[in-house]
C-alpha cells in the first residue's frame, strides 16, 4: 500500500511538467503584454522594455521555460508582477478560503446527497422520490451565479440574516457554501440513487434477505457499502474541481479565494501567478484523486487487491 502511494506521488512529476509546459506555451502565444498591463498605458517605451528585460520576457521561449523549471525545482516559482510578492505566498493566502469553501460544500453535498439518494432509491417512484428528483434536476440546471444572487437578495437584503460578502465568520460562509453545494448535492443524490437502485437488485441482496435479515440491515450493511463505490468517485471529482477555486461563487460573495486570484492574474497577464496557480490546481486535483483511490481500496476489497 505504501509503495503504491509512493509510486502515485512520483507519477505527479511528469503531470506537473506537462501541465506547466502547456500553460507556459498558452501564455506565450496569448496576445497582451504583461509589462503594459503592470506599468499602465502612460509608461514610456523604455520603461516597458526595461521591465521585459528584467523579467526575461524577451528571451526565446525555451530559455524562458528552462529558467522557470530550473528555479521551480529549487522551490522558487517566481514573484507576482502585480504585487511583487512571491507567488507561493499569494496562493497560500488565497488557499484557506478556497479549501474551507470546498470542504463545506462537499460536506453539505454528502450529508444531503447520500441520504436523499438512498431514500429515493428504496422508495422508487414514491412522492419523495419524484420531489427529490425534481429538486435534483433544478439544482443541476440552475446557474450558480443566479442562485447566489437570489440567496443574497433573500437572506441578506430582505431578511438581513446573513452577510452578503466575505468569508471570515461562520455566518458569512453559509450562503457561499450553499450556492456552491447546490450542484454537487444534485449530482451526489442522483448518483447515489442510481447506484443504489442497481445494487438492491443484486443477488447478494436477495441472499441477505433469504438469511432472514432485517430490511434496514440489508440496506445499511449489504447495499450501502457496494452502492457508495461509484459515489466516492463522483464526490472526489467534485471536490477536486472545487479545490481549483469556484470563480463564480467567489466573485459573487467577494471571497478572496484561488478562483478569483487566478482570474485576476489571467486578466493582468501576471504570468508567474497564473503558472503557479495552475500548478497548484494540478497538484490539488492529483492528490484528491489519489485520496479517492485510497478510499476506494478501503471500501472495495477487490480494488485493494490490485494495489499490492
Amino acid at each position, binding site marked *: 500500500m505504501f509503495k503504491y502511494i509512493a509510486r502515485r506521488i512520483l507519477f505527479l512529476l511528469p503531470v506537473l511538467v506537462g501541465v506547466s509546459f502547456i500553460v507556459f506555451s498558452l501564455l506565450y502565444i496569448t496576445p497582451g503584454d504583461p509589462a503594459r498591463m503592470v506599468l499602465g498605458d502612460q509608461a514610456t517605451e523604455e520603461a516597458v522594455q526595461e521591465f521585459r528585460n528584467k523579467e526575461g520576457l524577451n528571451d526565446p521561449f525555451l530559455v524562458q521555460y528552462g529558467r522557470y523549471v530550473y528555479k521551480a525545482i529549487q522551490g522558487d516559482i517566481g514573484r507576482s508582477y502585480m504585487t511583487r510578492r512571491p507567488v507561493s505566498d499569494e496562493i497560500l493566502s488565497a488557499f484557506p478560503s478556497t479549501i474551507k469553501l470546498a470542504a463545506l460544500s462537499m460536506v453539505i453535498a454528502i450529508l444531503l446527497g447520500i441520504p436523499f439518494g438512498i431514500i429515493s432509491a428504496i422508495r422508487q417512484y414514491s412522492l419523495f422520490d419524484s420531489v427529490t428528483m425534481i429538486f435534483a434536476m433544478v439544482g443541476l440546471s440552475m446557474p450558480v451565479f443566479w442562485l447566489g444572487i437570489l440567496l443574497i437578495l433573500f437572506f441578506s437584503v430582505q431578511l438581513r440574516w446573513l452577510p452578503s460578502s466575505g468569508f471570515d465568520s461562520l455566518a458569512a460562509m453559509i450562503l457561499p457554501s450553499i450556492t456552491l453545494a447546490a450542484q454537487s448535492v444534485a449530482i451526489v443524490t442522483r448518483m447515489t440513487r442510481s447506484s443504489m437502485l442497481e445494487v438492491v437488485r*443484486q*443477488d*447478494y441482496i*436477495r*441472499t*441477505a*434477505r*433469504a*438469511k*432472514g*435479515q*432485517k430490511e434496514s440491515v440489508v440496506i445499511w*450493511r*449489504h447495499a450501502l*457499502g*457496494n452502492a457508495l463505490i461509484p459515489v466516492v468517485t463522483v464526490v472526489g471529482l467534485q471536490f477536486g474541481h472545487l479545490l481549483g477555486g469556484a470563480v463564480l461563487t467567489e466573485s459573487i460573495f467577494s471571497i478572496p479565494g484561488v478562483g478569483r486570484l487566478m482570474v485576476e492574474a489571467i486578466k493582468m497577464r501576471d504570468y508567474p501567478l497564473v503558472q503557479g496557480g495552475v500548478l497548484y490546481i494540478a497538484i490539488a486535483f492529483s492528490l484528491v484523486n489519489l485520496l479517492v483511490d485510497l478510499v476506494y481500496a478501503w*471500501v*472495495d*476489497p*477487490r480494488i485493494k*487487491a490490485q494495489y499490492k
Partner: protein
Amino acid sequence: MEDKKLLLDIQDLSIHYVVESGTVHAVEHLNLSLAPGENLGFVGETGAGKTTTALGIMGLVPNPPGKVVNGKILFEGEDLLKKTEEQMRSIRGGKIAMIFQDPMTSLNPVITVDKQIAEMVLLHNNVTEQQALERAEEMLELVGIKRERARDFPHQFSGGMKQRVVIAIALACNPTLLIADEPTTALDVTIQAQVLELMHELRRKINTSLIMITHDLGIVAEMCDKVAIMYAGKVVEYAPTEALFNHPGHPYTEGLFNSIPDLDSDEEELKVIQGLMPDPTNLPSGCTFHPRCPYAVEACSKDVPPMVEIEPGHFVACPVRGKPYLHLGK
C-alpha cells in the same frame, strides 16, 4: 397428499407479476407437498415458475411487481402467507434456507466470507459474535474450505468454492427445509458433481428436507425421492422418481425424456418438444400444454385437467394420457 405430517403443503398457489405488457401468470393454481426428510426434484423449463414458487415459499417474491394472489403455503401446518414479516424473518434462514442459482453474484463482494456465514448464525441463534465466527469457520471446514481462508473476500474464491460458501451459509442454522435453486447450473460439470456430492452428504448429516430446483433430469435421478414436473406455472406431474422414470404419464414429461439425446443412436437433430413455452401473459385455455401436445383432443382446450392418481403416489394432470395407466392404481 393430505397427510397431516407433511412438512410443506402448497395449496392452490398463484403468483402473478403485474408488468406493463400485462399480468404474468408465473405460478397458477399450484399444488405441491413434501414429507419430512423427503427430497423433491422440481423440474421445468426456464420460465416455468420454479424459482417464483421457491421465492413464494421464502416470502421473497419481489413486490412490486410480484404478488401472491391466491393459495396457502402450509409449513409445519402453519400458513406462511399469513405470517407477519417479523415471523417470516425468523423462518427464513432458520427453518427454510435457500441456495441460489449463481454463486458468482450471490455473495456480497465487500464482506469477508466468515462474516457472511456468521451473519446467518447470529440472526437465528443466541450466540456472541465470536461464537458465530467460530461456527462460520466450522461450516467452512464442513464444506471443504480451509479455516485459514475464512477472512478472504468472495473474489478470492473460484465459482465452485463460492457455491460451497453459499451452501455453508444455507446450512449454518440446520434448516428443516433447504431449497436449492439450480445450485449447479453455473458451474463446470466436474465441479457440479463435487457440489452435488457435498449437498447429498451434508443433507444426510443434518437431516434436512430438500427441494431441488433443476432442469437436469440426471440430477433428479441421482438426488431425489420424488419429482414434480412444472409447466407454465403448474405442476403437471408428481411422482416418486422411479415411477416417473419408468412410466412418465404427462405428454410434457414424455417430451422431456424424448429430448434427452440417446448416445447409442446416431441422430442428427435433437428430438425437441414442438412449439414454444406459452406467453405467460396470455396462457392457453384448458390444459396449457395442449397447443404443443401430440395427443391433444378437443376437450383439452376447454377444461383444466385435474391431477389424477394413476398409481399410488403418481399424479398426472392429463386425462388423455393418464387413462391407460389407471389400471395400475386399481
